[in-house]
Protein backbone atom coordinates (compact mmCIF):
# COMPACT_ATOMS: atom_id res chain seq x y z
CA UNK A 1 0.00 0.00 0.00
CA UNK A 2 1.20 3.46 -0.76
CA UNK A 3 2.03 5.16 2.49
CA UNK A 4 0.76 8.66 2.90
CA UNK A 5 3.31 10.57 4.86
CA UNK A 6 2.46 14.27 4.64
CA UNK A 7 0.98 14.16 8.14
CA UNK A 8 4.31 13.17 9.68
CA UNK A 9 5.89 16.57 9.15
CA UNK A 10 6.60 19.25 11.70
CA UNK A 11 5.29 22.73 11.04
CA UNK A 12 2.95 25.47 12.22
CA UNK A 13 0.22 23.98 10.06
CA UNK A 14 0.63 20.49 11.53
CA UNK A 15 0.07 21.82 15.02
CA UNK A 16 -3.22 23.52 14.26
CA UNK A 17 -6.39 21.88 15.59
CA UNK A 18 -7.64 19.52 12.84
CA UNK A 19 -11.18 20.83 13.24
CA UNK A 20 -10.08 24.34 12.32
CA UNK A 21 -8.20 23.01 9.31
CA UNK A 22 -11.18 20.99 8.10
CA UNK A 23 -13.52 23.98 8.32
CA UNK A 24 -11.10 26.41 6.66
CA UNK A 25 -10.35 23.93 3.86
CA UNK A 26 -14.05 23.36 3.22
CA UNK A 27 -14.89 27.07 3.07
CA UNK A 28 -11.87 27.74 0.87
CA UNK A 29 -12.83 24.98 -1.56
CA UNK A 30 -16.41 26.23 -1.89
CA UNK A 31 -15.29 29.82 -2.36
CA UNK A 32 -12.71 28.99 -5.01
CA UNK A 33 -15.10 26.69 -6.82
CA UNK A 34 -17.64 29.52 -7.07
CA UNK A 35 -15.28 32.38 -7.92
CA UNK A 36 -14.87 33.47 -11.56
CA UNK A 37 -12.54 36.50 -11.43
CA UNK A 38 -9.06 35.63 -12.62
CA UNK A 39 -7.32 38.05 -10.24
CA UNK A 40 -9.14 36.62 -7.24
CA UNK A 41 -8.32 33.09 -8.33
CA UNK A 42 -4.69 34.06 -8.79
CA UNK A 43 -4.57 35.32 -5.23
CA UNK A 44 -6.28 32.12 -4.05
CA UNK A 45 -3.63 30.03 -5.79
CA UNK A 46 -0.91 32.13 -4.18
CA UNK A 47 -2.48 31.70 -0.74
CA UNK A 48 -2.66 27.93 -1.23
CA UNK A 49 0.97 27.78 -2.32
CA UNK A 50 1.98 29.88 0.68
CA UNK A 51 0.13 27.44 2.97
CA UNK A 52 1.96 24.51 1.42
CA UNK A 53 5.22 26.36 2.03
CA UNK A 54 4.20 27.02 5.63
CA UNK A 55 3.47 23.30 6.08
CA UNK A 56 7.06 22.62 4.91
CA UNK A 57 5.99 19.79 2.66
CA UNK A 58 8.47 18.39 0.15
CA UNK A 59 7.69 20.24 -3.09
CA UNK A 60 8.50 17.29 -5.29
CA UNK A 61 5.84 15.12 -3.65
CA UNK A 62 3.32 17.93 -3.66
CA UNK A 63 3.85 18.52 -7.38
CA UNK A 64 3.55 14.76 -7.86
CA UNK A 65 0.05 15.01 -6.43
CA UNK A 66 -0.80 17.66 -9.01
CA UNK A 67 0.23 15.60 -12.03
CA UNK A 68 -2.91 13.45 -12.47
CA UNK A 69 -5.08 16.55 -12.06
CA UNK A 70 -3.17 18.51 -14.65
CA UNK A 71 -3.12 15.72 -17.18
CA UNK A 72 -6.88 15.91 -17.05
CA UNK A 73 -6.77 19.72 -17.14
CA UNK A 74 -4.63 19.56 -20.26
CA UNK A 75 -7.54 17.95 -22.04
CA UNK A 76 -9.78 20.88 -21.11
CA UNK A 77 -7.11 23.43 -21.97
CA UNK A 78 -6.81 21.98 -25.44
CA UNK A 79 -10.49 21.56 -26.20
CA UNK A 80 -12.21 24.48 -24.48
CA UNK A 81 -10.66 27.39 -26.45
CA UNK A 82 -11.63 25.61 -29.65
CA UNK A 83 -15.18 24.74 -28.77
CA UNK A 84 -16.72 27.45 -26.65
CA UNK A 85 -17.43 29.92 -29.45
CA UNK A 86 -17.37 33.68 -28.89
CA UNK A 87 -14.96 36.25 -30.23
CA UNK A 88 -11.95 34.58 -31.90
CA UNK A 89 -8.52 35.60 -30.62
CA UNK A 90 -6.60 33.98 -33.44
CA UNK A 91 -7.23 31.01 -35.61
CA UNK A 92 -5.40 27.82 -36.32
CA UNK A 93 -6.43 26.72 -39.78
CA UNK A 94 -10.21 26.55 -39.93
CA UNK A 95 -10.82 26.63 -36.14
CA UNK A 96 -10.87 29.84 -34.17
CA UNK A 97 -9.40 30.01 -30.68
CA UNK A 98 -11.81 32.07 -28.63
CA UNK A 99 -10.89 34.51 -25.90
CA UNK A 100 -13.77 33.29 -23.70
CA UNK A 101 -12.70 29.70 -24.14
CA UNK A 102 -9.11 30.44 -23.18
CA UNK A 103 -10.29 32.37 -20.15
CA UNK A 104 -12.60 29.57 -19.07
CA UNK A 105 -9.87 26.97 -19.43
CA UNK A 106 -7.45 29.07 -17.38
CA UNK A 107 -10.08 29.61 -14.68
CA UNK A 108 -10.73 25.90 -14.36
CA UNK A 109 -7.04 25.01 -14.29
CA UNK A 110 -6.30 27.57 -11.57
CA UNK A 111 -9.29 26.49 -9.49
CA UNK A 112 -8.35 22.84 -9.64
CA UNK A 113 -4.75 23.39 -8.68
CA UNK A 114 -5.56 25.89 -5.96
CA UNK A 115 -8.06 23.56 -4.29
CA UNK A 116 -5.77 20.53 -4.45
CA UNK A 117 -2.86 22.53 -3.05
CA UNK A 118 -5.00 23.83 -0.19
CA UNK A 119 -6.30 20.35 0.62
CA UNK A 120 -2.78 18.93 0.58
CA UNK A 121 -1.55 21.66 2.90
CA UNK A 122 -4.48 21.61 5.31
CA UNK A 123 -5.95 18.10 5.21
CA UNK A 124 -3.19 15.75 4.05
CA UNK A 125 -1.25 17.02 7.05
CA UNK A 126 -3.87 15.63 9.43
CA UNK A 127 -3.37 12.07 10.56
CA UNK A 128 -6.31 9.99 9.32
CA UNK A 129 -7.54 9.02 12.76
CA UNK A 130 -7.48 12.62 13.86
CA UNK A 131 -9.33 13.53 10.68
CA UNK A 132 -12.04 11.00 11.51
CA UNK A 133 -12.36 12.39 15.00
CA UNK A 134 -12.38 15.96 13.74
CA UNK A 135 -15.20 15.08 11.37
CA UNK A 136 -17.21 13.45 14.13
CA UNK A 137 -16.68 16.53 16.33
CA UNK A 138 -17.94 18.64 13.46
CA UNK A 139 -21.18 16.63 13.44
CA UNK A 140 -20.49 14.84 10.19
CA UNK A 141 -22.83 11.81 10.20
CA UNK A 142 -21.26 8.96 12.19
CA UNK A 143 -21.62 6.49 9.37
CA UNK A 144 -19.41 8.52 7.06
CA UNK A 145 -16.78 8.91 9.74
CA UNK A 146 -16.75 5.17 10.44
CA UNK A 147 -16.55 4.42 6.77
CA UNK A 148 -13.37 6.47 6.66
CA UNK A 149 -11.86 4.96 9.80
CA UNK A 150 -12.70 1.36 8.95
CA UNK A 151 -11.42 1.76 5.40
CA UNK A 152 -8.13 2.96 6.78
CA UNK A 153 -7.98 0.11 9.26
CA UNK A 154 -8.91 -2.73 6.93
CA UNK A 155 -7.70 -1.76 3.49
CA UNK A 156 -4.27 -3.00 4.48
CA UNK A 157 -5.66 -6.28 5.83
CA UNK A 158 -7.54 -6.90 2.60
CA UNK A 159 -4.49 -6.02 0.57
CA UNK A 160 -2.40 -8.46 2.61
CA UNK A 161 -5.03 -11.12 2.11
CA UNK A 162 -4.83 -10.51 -1.62
CA UNK A 163 -1.06 -10.76 -1.59
CA UNK A 164 -1.21 -13.99 0.42
CA UNK A 165 -3.61 -15.56 -2.03
CA UNK A 166 -1.63 -14.33 -5.03
CA UNK A 167 1.55 -15.77 -3.50
CA UNK A 168 -0.22 -19.08 -2.82
CA UNK A 169 -1.21 -19.18 -6.48
CA UNK A 170 2.30 -18.39 -7.62
CA UNK A 171 4.03 -21.06 -5.55
CA UNK A 172 1.71 -23.59 -7.10
CA UNK A 173 2.92 -22.62 -10.53
CA UNK A 174 0.23 -20.18 -11.63
CA UNK A 175 1.32 -17.82 -14.41
CA UNK A 176 -1.25 -15.43 -15.84
CA UNK A 177 -1.89 -16.03 -19.54
CA UNK A 178 -4.67 -15.08 -21.88
CA UNK A 179 -6.71 -18.21 -21.39
CA UNK A 180 -9.83 -19.40 -19.65
CA UNK A 181 -7.93 -20.95 -16.75
CA UNK A 182 -6.38 -17.55 -15.96
CA UNK A 183 -9.72 -15.72 -16.11
CA UNK A 184 -11.38 -18.35 -13.94
CA UNK A 185 -8.57 -18.17 -11.39
CA UNK A 186 -8.80 -14.38 -11.21
CA UNK A 187 -12.54 -14.77 -10.80
CA UNK A 188 -11.96 -17.04 -7.81
CA UNK A 189 -9.41 -14.66 -6.37
CA UNK A 190 -11.73 -11.66 -6.50
CA UNK A 191 -14.67 -13.73 -5.30
CA UNK A 192 -12.73 -15.07 -2.32
CA UNK A 193 -11.56 -11.58 -1.47
CA UNK A 194 -15.15 -10.33 -1.41
CA UNK A 195 -16.47 -13.26 0.60
CA UNK A 196 -13.63 -13.04 3.09
CA UNK A 197 -14.12 -9.31 3.57
CA UNK A 198 -17.80 -9.89 4.11
CA UNK A 199 -17.14 -12.59 6.71
CA UNK A 200 -14.56 -10.43 8.35
CA UNK A 201 -17.07 -7.61 8.67
CA UNK A 202 -19.34 -10.03 10.53
CA UNK A 203 -16.57 -11.09 12.86
CA UNK A 204 -15.47 -7.53 13.53
CA UNK A 205 -19.02 -6.60 14.45
CA UNK A 206 -19.15 -9.63 16.75
CA UNK A 207 -15.93 -8.49 18.41
CA UNK A 208 -17.34 -5.00 18.83
CA UNK A 209 -20.52 -6.36 20.41
CA UNK A 210 -18.41 -8.37 22.84
CA UNK A 211 -16.96 -5.15 24.07
CA UNK A 212 -20.26 -3.46 24.67
CA UNK A 213 -20.70 -1.67 21.35
CA UNK A 214 -24.18 -0.23 21.06
CA UNK A 215 -23.99 1.85 17.92
CA UNK A 216 -21.97 4.75 19.27
CA UNK A 217 -18.31 5.59 19.04
CA UNK A 218 -16.65 7.44 21.84
CA UNK A 219 -13.55 9.46 21.27
CA UNK A 220 -10.66 8.86 23.64
CA UNK A 221 -8.75 12.09 23.22
CA UNK A 222 -10.34 15.46 22.86
CA UNK A 223 -8.84 18.24 20.84
CA UNK A 224 -7.92 21.46 22.54
CA UNK A 225 -8.72 24.63 20.68
CA UNK A 226 -5.80 26.83 21.63
CA UNK A 227 -5.10 30.50 21.12
CA UNK A 228 -2.92 29.61 18.14
CA UNK A 229 -5.86 27.78 16.55
CA UNK A 230 -8.05 30.82 17.10
CA UNK A 231 -5.39 33.02 15.46
CA UNK A 232 -5.21 30.68 12.48
CA UNK A 233 -8.98 30.55 12.07
CA UNK A 234 -9.27 34.33 12.36
CA UNK A 235 -6.53 35.01 9.81
CA UNK A 236 -7.95 32.46 7.40
CA UNK A 237 -11.42 33.95 7.91
CA UNK A 238 -10.21 37.45 7.05
CA UNK A 239 -8.37 36.26 3.93
CA UNK A 240 -11.39 34.30 2.76
CA UNK A 241 -13.69 37.24 3.46
CA UNK A 242 -11.47 39.61 1.48
CA UNK A 243 -11.47 37.17 -1.41
CA UNK A 244 -15.25 36.93 -1.29
CA UNK A 245 -15.62 40.72 -1.18
CA UNK A 246 -13.26 41.19 -4.12
CA UNK A 247 -15.15 38.57 -6.06
CA UNK A 248 -18.69 39.72 -5.47
CA UNK A 249 -18.76 43.50 -4.96
CA UNK A 250 -19.52 45.36 -8.17
CA UNK A 251 -17.14 48.29 -7.58
CA UNK A 252 -14.01 46.24 -6.88
Amino acid at each position, binding site marked *: MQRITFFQGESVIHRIDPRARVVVAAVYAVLVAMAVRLDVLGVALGVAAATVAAARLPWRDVLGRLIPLNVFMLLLLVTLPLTSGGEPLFSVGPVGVSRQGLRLAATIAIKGNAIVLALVALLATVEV*TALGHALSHLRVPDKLTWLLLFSVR*YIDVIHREYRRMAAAMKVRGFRPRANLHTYRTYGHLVGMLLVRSFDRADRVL*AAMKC*RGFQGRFYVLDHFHFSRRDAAFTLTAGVVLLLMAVAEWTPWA
Partner: protein
Amino acid sequence: MGVDQPQITLADVSFSFAPDRPVLRRCCLELRPGQRVGVTGANGSGKSTLLHLIVGLLMPDEGTIEAFGKPRNREADFREVRRRAGLLFQDSEDQLFCPTVAEDVAFGPLNLGRTRGQVHEVVARSLDTLGLAGYEDRVTYQLSGGEKRLVALATVLAMEPDVLLLDEPTAGLDEAVQQRLADLLVGLPQAMLIASHDRAFLQQIATRTEHLRDGHL
Protein backbone atom coordinates in the same frame (compact mmCIF):
# COMPACT_ATOMS: atom_id res chain seq x y z
CA MET B 1 -25.32 -15.91 43.86
CA GLY B 2 -23.41 -18.18 46.22
CA VAL B 3 -19.67 -18.38 46.09
CA ASP B 4 -19.68 -21.81 44.55
CA GLN B 5 -22.56 -21.46 42.15
CA PRO B 6 -21.37 -22.04 38.59
CA GLN B 7 -20.88 -18.77 36.71
CA ILE B 8 -21.55 -20.46 33.40
CA THR B 9 -23.60 -23.59 32.80
CA LEU B 10 -24.32 -25.28 29.48
CA ALA B 11 -27.05 -27.90 29.68
CA ASP B 12 -27.55 -30.27 26.73
CA VAL B 13 -26.55 -27.64 24.21
CA SER B 14 -26.71 -28.68 20.56
CA PHE B 15 -25.63 -26.58 17.63
CA SER B 16 -25.07 -26.97 13.92
CA PHE B 17 -24.24 -24.61 11.06
CA ALA B 18 -25.85 -27.03 8.61
CA PRO B 19 -28.59 -29.49 9.67
CA ASP B 20 -26.72 -32.56 8.43
CA ARG B 21 -23.44 -31.67 10.16
CA PRO B 22 -23.95 -31.10 13.89
CA VAL B 23 -21.02 -29.37 15.58
CA LEU B 24 -22.09 -29.76 19.20
CA ARG B 25 -24.39 -32.52 20.46
CA ARG B 26 -25.95 -32.23 23.91
CA CYS B 27 -22.91 -30.62 25.47
CA CYS B 28 -22.85 -30.03 29.20
CA LEU B 29 -20.34 -27.81 30.94
CA GLU B 30 -19.97 -25.96 34.21
CA LEU B 31 -17.54 -23.23 35.05
CA ARG B 32 -17.27 -22.29 38.70
CA PRO B 33 -15.44 -19.34 40.26
CA GLY B 34 -11.69 -19.80 40.30
CA GLN B 35 -11.68 -22.69 37.85
CA ARG B 36 -9.47 -22.63 34.79
CA VAL B 37 -10.89 -25.15 32.40
CA GLY B 38 -8.97 -26.18 29.31
CA VAL B 39 -10.87 -27.29 26.22
CA THR B 40 -8.99 -29.45 23.74
CA GLY B 41 -10.13 -31.08 20.54
CA ALA B 42 -9.17 -31.58 16.95
CA ASN B 43 -9.34 -28.79 14.38
CA GLY B 44 -12.94 -28.18 13.53
CA SER B 45 -14.23 -30.01 16.59
CA GLY B 46 -16.18 -26.94 17.71
CA LYS B 47 -14.07 -25.25 20.38
CA SER B 48 -14.47 -21.76 18.95
CA THR B 49 -18.14 -22.46 18.33
CA LEU B 50 -18.58 -23.35 22.00
CA LEU B 51 -17.07 -20.07 23.15
CA HIS B 52 -19.16 -18.06 20.70
CA LEU B 53 -22.31 -19.76 21.98
CA ILE B 54 -21.53 -18.74 25.54
CA VAL B 55 -21.52 -15.04 24.67
CA GLY B 56 -24.51 -15.33 22.37
CA LEU B 57 -22.75 -14.67 19.05
CA LEU B 58 -24.38 -17.95 18.02
CA MET B 59 -27.64 -19.29 19.39
CA PRO B 60 -28.01 -22.96 20.42
CA ASP B 61 -30.46 -25.11 18.49
CA GLU B 62 -31.36 -26.94 21.68
CA GLY B 63 -30.44 -26.82 25.33
CA THR B 64 -29.97 -23.92 27.70
CA ILE B 65 -27.17 -21.57 28.59
CA GLU B 66 -27.09 -20.09 32.04
CA ALA B 67 -24.66 -17.33 32.86
CA PHE B 68 -24.15 -15.45 36.10
CA GLY B 69 -27.16 -17.04 37.69
CA LYS B 70 -29.73 -16.39 34.96
CA PRO B 71 -30.87 -18.33 31.92
CA ARG B 72 -29.90 -16.53 28.71
CA ASN B 73 -32.10 -16.98 25.69
CA ARG B 74 -32.30 -13.78 23.70
CA GLU B 75 -29.89 -11.21 22.27
CA ALA B 76 -30.88 -8.79 25.04
CA ASP B 77 -29.95 -11.37 27.72
CA PHE B 78 -26.53 -11.80 26.24
CA ARG B 79 -25.57 -8.13 26.37
CA GLU B 80 -24.83 -8.44 30.05
CA VAL B 81 -23.02 -11.73 29.47
CA ARG B 82 -20.69 -10.09 26.96
CA ARG B 83 -19.85 -7.39 29.43
CA ARG B 84 -19.00 -9.87 32.16
CA ALA B 85 -17.39 -12.62 30.07
CA GLY B 86 -14.42 -11.40 28.03
CA LEU B 87 -13.85 -13.35 24.82
CA LEU B 88 -10.44 -13.42 23.16
CA PHE B 89 -11.05 -14.21 19.49
CA GLN B 90 -9.01 -16.78 17.64
CA ASP B 91 -8.05 -14.20 15.01
CA SER B 92 -6.83 -10.96 16.58
CA GLU B 93 -7.16 -9.18 13.26
CA ASP B 94 -10.92 -9.25 13.85
CA GLN B 95 -10.68 -8.00 17.36
CA LEU B 96 -8.51 -4.95 16.82
CA PHE B 97 -10.43 -2.48 14.73
CA CYS B 98 -9.40 0.89 16.06
CA PRO B 99 -6.47 2.71 14.46
CA THR B 100 -4.26 2.91 17.53
CA VAL B 101 -3.59 0.53 20.41
CA ALA B 102 -4.77 2.96 23.09
CA GLU B 103 -8.02 3.63 21.29
CA ASP B 104 -8.64 -0.06 20.83
CA VAL B 105 -8.08 -0.89 24.47
CA ALA B 106 -10.23 2.09 25.47
CA PHE B 107 -13.11 1.09 23.22
CA GLY B 108 -14.67 -1.35 25.70
CA PRO B 109 -14.36 0.79 28.84
CA LEU B 110 -15.73 3.82 26.95
CA ASN B 111 -18.75 1.75 25.92
CA LEU B 112 -19.25 0.81 29.55
CA GLY B 113 -19.57 4.49 30.34
CA ARG B 114 -16.37 4.94 32.32
CA THR B 115 -15.04 8.45 32.78
CA ARG B 116 -12.04 9.55 30.76
CA GLY B 117 -9.78 9.44 33.80
CA GLN B 118 -10.81 5.88 34.59
CA VAL B 119 -10.38 4.87 30.96
CA HIS B 120 -6.84 6.24 30.70
CA GLU B 121 -5.99 4.47 33.93
CA VAL B 122 -7.43 1.10 32.91
CA VAL B 123 -5.76 1.33 29.48
CA ALA B 124 -2.38 1.97 31.06
CA ARG B 125 -2.91 -0.81 33.59
CA SER B 126 -4.00 -3.46 31.05
CA LEU B 127 -1.11 -2.68 28.72
CA ASP B 128 1.33 -2.67 31.59
CA THR B 129 0.18 -6.09 32.84
CA LEU B 130 0.99 -7.59 29.46
CA GLY B 131 4.33 -5.86 29.12
CA LEU B 132 2.98 -3.50 26.48
CA ALA B 133 3.73 -0.20 28.17
CA GLY B 134 4.73 2.31 25.51
CA TYR B 135 2.55 0.73 22.84
CA GLU B 136 -0.28 3.25 23.30
CA ASP B 137 0.23 5.17 20.08
CA ARG B 138 1.29 2.27 17.88
CA VAL B 139 -0.89 1.68 14.85
CA THR B 140 -2.72 -1.64 15.32
CA TYR B 141 -2.36 -2.95 11.80
CA GLN B 142 1.38 -2.49 11.84
CA LEU B 143 1.91 -4.73 14.88
CA SER B 144 3.36 -8.21 14.55
CA GLY B 145 1.07 -11.23 14.94
CA GLY B 146 2.19 -11.90 18.51
CA GLU B 147 1.88 -8.25 19.49
CA LYS B 148 -1.64 -8.20 18.09
CA ARG B 149 -2.45 -11.22 20.22
CA LEU B 150 -1.27 -9.47 23.38
CA VAL B 151 -3.06 -6.22 22.55
CA ALA B 152 -6.25 -8.20 21.90
CA LEU B 153 -5.87 -9.75 25.33
CA ALA B 154 -5.35 -6.28 26.80
CA THR B 155 -8.63 -5.13 25.23
CA VAL B 156 -10.36 -8.06 26.95
CA LEU B 157 -8.75 -7.40 30.32
CA ALA B 158 -9.63 -3.72 30.10
CA MET B 159 -13.31 -4.67 30.29
CA GLU B 160 -12.55 -6.10 33.75
CA PRO B 161 -14.63 -9.22 33.08
CA ASP B 162 -15.69 -11.78 35.70
CA VAL B 163 -14.91 -14.68 33.40
CA LEU B 164 -12.36 -15.07 30.59
CA LEU B 165 -13.01 -17.09 27.43
CA LEU B 166 -9.73 -17.50 25.61
CA ASP B 167 -9.57 -18.97 22.11
CA GLU B 168 -6.03 -20.18 21.42
CA PRO B 169 -4.34 -17.58 23.62
CA THR B 170 -0.82 -18.81 22.87
CA ALA B 171 -1.09 -18.89 19.08
CA GLY B 172 1.80 -16.96 17.58
CA LEU B 173 3.53 -16.15 20.87
CA ASP B 174 7.19 -16.92 21.48
CA GLU B 175 8.16 -19.11 24.41
CA ALA B 176 9.15 -16.33 26.76
CA VAL B 177 5.88 -14.50 26.18
CA GLN B 178 3.93 -17.76 26.53
CA GLN B 179 5.53 -18.30 29.90
CA ARG B 180 4.73 -14.75 30.97
CA LEU B 181 1.14 -15.25 29.83
CA ALA B 182 0.85 -18.50 31.78
CA ASP B 183 2.10 -16.81 34.94
CA LEU B 184 -0.25 -13.92 34.38
CA LEU B 185 -3.31 -16.11 33.85
CA VAL B 186 -2.56 -18.20 36.93
CA GLY B 187 -2.33 -15.01 38.93
CA LEU B 188 -5.70 -13.68 37.77
CA PRO B 189 -8.70 -14.23 40.04
CA GLN B 190 -11.19 -14.84 37.21
CA ALA B 191 -12.52 -18.21 36.18
CA MET B 192 -11.57 -19.02 32.61
CA LEU B 193 -12.27 -21.34 29.75
CA ILE B 194 -9.26 -21.86 27.50
CA ALA B 195 -9.53 -23.48 24.07
CA SER B 196 -6.07 -24.58 23.02
CA HIS B 197 -4.01 -27.19 21.22
CA ASP B 198 -1.07 -26.42 23.43
CA ARG B 199 -1.07 -29.28 25.96
CA ALA B 200 1.98 -28.09 27.86
CA PHE B 201 0.40 -24.68 28.31
CA LEU B 202 -2.90 -26.15 29.50
CA GLN B 203 -1.13 -28.50 31.88
CA GLN B 204 0.58 -25.53 33.41
CA ILE B 205 -2.47 -23.40 34.03
CA ALA B 206 -5.66 -25.46 33.81
CA THR B 207 -7.35 -26.87 36.90
CA ARG B 208 -9.28 -29.29 34.68
CA THR B 209 -9.33 -30.20 30.99
CA GLU B 210 -12.28 -31.19 28.84
CA HIS B 211 -11.89 -32.93 25.51
CA LEU B 212 -14.27 -32.17 22.69
CA ARG B 213 -14.90 -35.03 20.30
CA ASP B 214 -17.82 -35.86 18.01
CA GLY B 215 -19.70 -32.93 19.46
CA HIS B 216 -19.48 -34.17 23.05
CA LEU B 217 -17.48 -32.88 25.95
